[in-house]
């Protein structure tokens, strides 16, 4: 099954990226935006205070900070979080070819929901 095959390969790649980028972070191979030994000062703060104090933007701004040791980890995290979208994109044409219109529409709708969530359009407000 195409969904299972893509998921299987994707998870393996994602975990490898996660481990490598985490090693880069904790061994301080690349300078971090927040030095790893200073993070305990911030991790008890609510997220909006943490973002304001550390001058971090929301949404996909992490893409522009991939040169920082802490943000390079987001490559693996985003890769794994995006795997389901990739699987749905692969399986949706199968429903179309089988003339399974209900599941074709449901799959398209799911892709829409996941892309909306991933887009960063949706804010979380603040405490």
């Amino acid at each position: 099954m195409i969904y299972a095959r893509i998921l299987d390969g994707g998870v393996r790649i994602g975990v490898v990226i996660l481990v490598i980028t985490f090693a880069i972070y904790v061994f301080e191979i690349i300078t971090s935006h927040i030095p790893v030994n200073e993070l305990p000062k911030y991790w008890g703060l609510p997220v909006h205070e943490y973002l304001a104090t550390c001058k971090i933007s929301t949404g996909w701004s992490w893409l522009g900070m991939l040169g920082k040791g802490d943000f390079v980890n987001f490559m693996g995290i985003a890769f794994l979080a995006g795997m389901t979208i990739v699987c749905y994109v692969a399986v949706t044409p199968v429903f179309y070819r089988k003339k399974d219109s209900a599941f074709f529409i449901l799959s398209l709708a799911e892709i829409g929901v996941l892309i909306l969530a991933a887009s960063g359009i949706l804010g979380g407000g603040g405490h």
Partner: protein
Amino acid sequence: MGLNEYQEKQRMPWRGVCFQILYFLLMGQNLVFGDEIAPSLSLPTSQFPWWGWPLLLFFVTLIMGILAVLGGVGGGVLFVPIVGGFFPFHLDFVRGAGLLVALCGALAAGPGLLRRGMADLRLSIPVALITSSFAIVGAMLGLALPTHIVQTALGATILGIVLIMFLAKKSEYPEVRKADALSTALKISGVYNEVSTGQDIAWKIHRTPQGLLLFTLVGVMAGMFGIGAGAANVPVLNLLMGAPLKVSVATSKFLLSITDSSAAWVYINNGAVLPLLVVPSIMGIMLGSIVGVKILAKTKPAAVRSIVIGILLLAGLRALLKGLGIWE
């Protein structure tokens, strides 16, 4: 602290780490590492290397991973109340990490469950559309509401899950006399091979609209609290909709890979993800799950399940009382 004593601590940080881990396990108190005094602190400040926390988190999640497999629960439902209740990280980051922990566990299990025909894609897709949509709503609510309200609601939800685990009966092969119109139209039915008997089991479902309605709540819960919500998925699929138990458990696990994905993106895009918290937790839970599967045959599931229920009860009470300001 004298210079000699300080130098001794610097040379032997493990002694302090081990002491605090022991204290944590015995007393259920927050630990202190680094310069910062964590909220709800009850231990005197000590100087520890920054890596003490991720290391401790790795070992705790390793144990959680083992218990989750042996107790038949998802890692996320253990992770959020325990780490949120006993570690110094803010609940926002714990929920973000909890979603990613549950997501990665589901992603890793997904291929195997689909290939064996245990998780059913046709059952998953309509349900996932509901849960993933409402998980976004839950995630946005969770990040917008005051922390003490989310903490209190988390405690109440975990205690509710404990009640479900304690009371709900499971039906191996629920009787479904006639599939309902919606599941018939969507052709949601299947056959899976029961390995223990070698039989092919045909199944169909009923009460699909009611089930989908309940999944809106499950989605909100998953997104708001960062828990996998498998404990809520299974009773709806099995007891209400009539899917066989194994299909329900496997489909529930697979569903988390879709539900938690949408909610996880909301947390990622709102900055509520700390890699130092997320990566050791994912690795710990994954390795724990592998160890758990290996020792599964040698353990008594009922005894382990009682331990898991006990831990969840304690963690749920802690979250509830912390949210209410009674047990800071």
